[in-house]
């Protein structure tokens, strides 16, 4: 087990380096000139060059990448110009390892941007995960148990509707009607538990999380229904039933446990993806999480932040992948890690 985990972790590190490199290459493959964008409306070519140098974009790609990787290991100090740092210690920002860089657009380190944004995204993702797991699994079981009935068809039909509408549409619909027109809920804005208490925190998360959960929930209903039905058709279930076991233990103790394995995989990966930022939901609700940070850094061609967010997202996906694989062994004893 441990050898397996270490091997997977090592592969994960290599993947993260590759992701960072690809992000660098893609960034510089665009036609945009980030120095020109940063420089302002009316910059001369000479001023753009100065900005380019200040942002480090005048360096060859491999040098920039090397500086970034070195920062991850030993940290960095900003501004990059050593002379400015020595003469103006009050301007210096220390970025300890693993330093993801410095966002000139916001005037702080990428690490601190991510630390500020992560709780929002984690809150959103956790509440949404709970919503879609509870709703998805319960409705999925319901549809499976009442297969072919009005309930089954109704639940499956509703999931199709939820699937049909993109997250963007659902979010705007909720804001326009539930909040503005019908005034059922206040206009959501992220409030930390420390600032507003648990109730306010949850009340403000309700709509964005439900928006996020809805599409996932639709998928989980259909998957749960399919997996449970598949399990219910297995020989060991027939055996259990023929031995006189009641329906509830058969369903929950035997059929559902087998159906859970692929659901855990899905949930782990979906959750990991969300931790990298729920881009559409955060953008529509203006929740200052990693998703909104991604959008803002992309639109302003803020390379250090883009790379930082991509790396964090990749980190979550890789780590949760490993955890999901390991969890198989506990959920399904037939699985052995080697």
């Amino acid at each position: 087990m441990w050898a397996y985990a270490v091997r997977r972790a090592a592969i994960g590190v290599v993947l993260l380096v590759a992701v960072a490199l690809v992000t660098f290459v893609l960034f510089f493959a665009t036609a945009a000139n980030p120095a020109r964008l940063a420089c302002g409306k009316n910059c001369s070519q000479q001023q753009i060059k100065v900005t380019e140098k200040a942002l480090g974009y005048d360096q060859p790609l491999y040098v920039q990448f090397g500086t970034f990787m070195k920062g991850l290991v030993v940290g960095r100090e900003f501004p990059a110009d050593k002379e400015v740092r020595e003469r103006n210690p009050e301007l210096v920002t220390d970025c300890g390892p693993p330093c993801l860089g410095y966002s000139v657009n916001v005037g702080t380190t990428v690490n601190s941007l991510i630390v500020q944004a992560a709780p929002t995204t984690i809150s959103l993702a956790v509440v949404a995960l709970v919503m879609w797991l509870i709703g998805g699994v319960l409705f999925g079981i319901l549809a499976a148990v009442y297969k072919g009935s009005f309930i089954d068809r109704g639940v499956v039909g509703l999931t199709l509707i939820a699937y049909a509408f993109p997250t963007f549409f659902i979010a705007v619909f909720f804001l326009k009607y539930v909040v503005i027109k019908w005034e059922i809920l206040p206009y959501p804005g992220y409030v930390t538990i420390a600032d507003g208490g648990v109730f306010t925190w949850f009340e403000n998360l309700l709509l964005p999380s439900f928006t996020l959960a809805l599409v996932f929930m639709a998928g989980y209903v259909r998957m749960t229904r399919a997996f449970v039905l598949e399990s219910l058709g297995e020989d060991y279930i027939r055996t259990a039933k023929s031995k006189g076991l009641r329906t509830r233990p058969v369903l929950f103790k035997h059929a559902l446990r087998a159906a859970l394995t692929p659901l855990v995989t899905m949930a782990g990966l979906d959750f990991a993806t969300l931790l990298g930022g729920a881009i559409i939901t955060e953008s529509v609700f203006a929740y200052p999480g990693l998703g909104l940070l991604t959008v803002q850094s992309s639109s302003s061609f803020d390379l250090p932040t883009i790379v930082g967010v991509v790396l964090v997202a990749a980190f979550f996906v890789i780590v949760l992948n490993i955890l999901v694989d390991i969890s198989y062994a506990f959920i399904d004893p037939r699985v052995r890690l080697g």
Partner: protein
Amino acid sequence: MKLRRTFAATAAAALGATILAACGGGGGGTDTNSSGDTESAKGGTLTVLQHFPFESTDPQRIYYGVELSWFRRLLYRGLVAFPMDDSNEVVPDLATDTGTSSEGGKVWSFTLKDGVKWEDGSDITCEDVQYGTSRVFANDLIIGGPNYTLSYLSSLDYPGPYKATAKQQAAFDKAVSCSSDNKTITFHFDKPWADFPLAAASLMMTDPYKKSFDQGDKSKFKVLSNGPYKVEGGTWSKNKGATLVRNDEYDPSTDEPDKLRLALPDTIDYQIDPSDTAGELFNDRLIANAPADQTAITTARVAPSQFPKITGSVEDRYQNPESPYNDYLVPNFNRLKDVNVRQALAAALPLNDYVKALGGDRSATASETIVNPALDFPDNPAFADDADNDGDPDAAKALLEKAGVQTPYPIKLGYSKSPTMDKAMAVIKEGWDKAGFDVTLAPLTDTYYDVISKPDDDYDVTWAGWGADWPSAMTVLPPLFDGRPNISSTTCGNDYGCYDSDAFNKLVDQAAEATDVDEQKSILEDADKQLGEDVAYIPLEITKFNWLYGSKVTGFTTTAASSSYPEIGLIGVQQ
């Protein structure tokens, strides 16, 4: 302008839309831009619903038009400022007068009033103005703000206060000097700057900045106010905004509140929602006029899809001024070398139908020049003389025949993609196709301005937008058409058509050397005529703004000084 700046600045400005650049604006006439309820109401909380984040709240970095005009009223007083009207005449703010010039406009002096203070209680001194001016030169650290002072002090080899040697700093301190009583600042420019007070009023590149408060990049969102309000907590949140409360150190007797800032609300609550949908939702809220939104204004324009809802009592809370921004088409001089072909494009342009496609009278006004009407600049005869603006295919065909080119003449038309622009550009294509052109539409996305500024791009014509930085065509024509600072081997800069004319450049030089504003304007009118004769641009439209506000907002007005955004210095709320 367009909400994407990202500059932001340039892109923003040009993307047709919203925020950048400075003054200008207005249009529509003052009398049409005021709300019916102008009764002043002191106290209460004004809510500002803002649909985009500011790039910075550091005065030397600010370049968004609405931020410049609002912060000038609320937080950052300048040496001089524009009054809350459409006059474009500066009045003293921190200074005792609007500046004294000598040596033909090369030297400008301003003396600070007594009793003007920072929010920490310390006096605003000449050294603060000197230091604020010096920060602009550190364009490796103070990035993104307007930097015109660099070109007027270009003889200085000055890297800004963070890196300057003693010798460099001494040279700067001589060029931008303080009197012995630390009250009078004198700018010794390399060349005449006839409209310097206009620039100082519009932009914040010569605003004071307290040295001990400066932490370079770390000060990007910190605010040390000298206006009637201060930021609660001292730090602006980029994505959330801030609460502005009264600044106890502000003394109205050092100000002219009736002209510059009434400062009516006790509190101003900036609520930033930087989402793509926020603008439309804000206006939905203002249409609904729920109690919590009755004291709110917004930076977001009403979307064309919401126009049908502006009826009855909602219409009483609606204003539709012309913006400070003009859109135009740019022929590519590396490809369309024959002036007859360019003239044919101008002649065949179905401008009226184009404006209808943009949303009609509420969205735009057809323009006969690239210079915004708020600058009191005449139409360009090359475009105004013909003109019913319906497009004349026959005249265009005759011009193409004169050019001796084969028809249909292929044209690749680049523009910044959006559903509205797709429709509007299709109208242009139809008009030009009728006139003997074969137009291929080429919509582009985020990197638009970087793509069209490349000298070797294959676009024959591109769309662009611009707004003046202060009420002078000097901030329109030279930045856009003087090839010398713009064109290099890799880019044409803001001169998207790579236009480079000795005749035009000579006029620009003359305008730059002019010792007074009227003389300068006259020369720039000739320069614009030259551009028209060369068809260096084809004017399209003046963008219009659409503003809604809550029913308990008082004094809602837009002015040239507010860049046609709500004039926040006049606005109050009913209790």
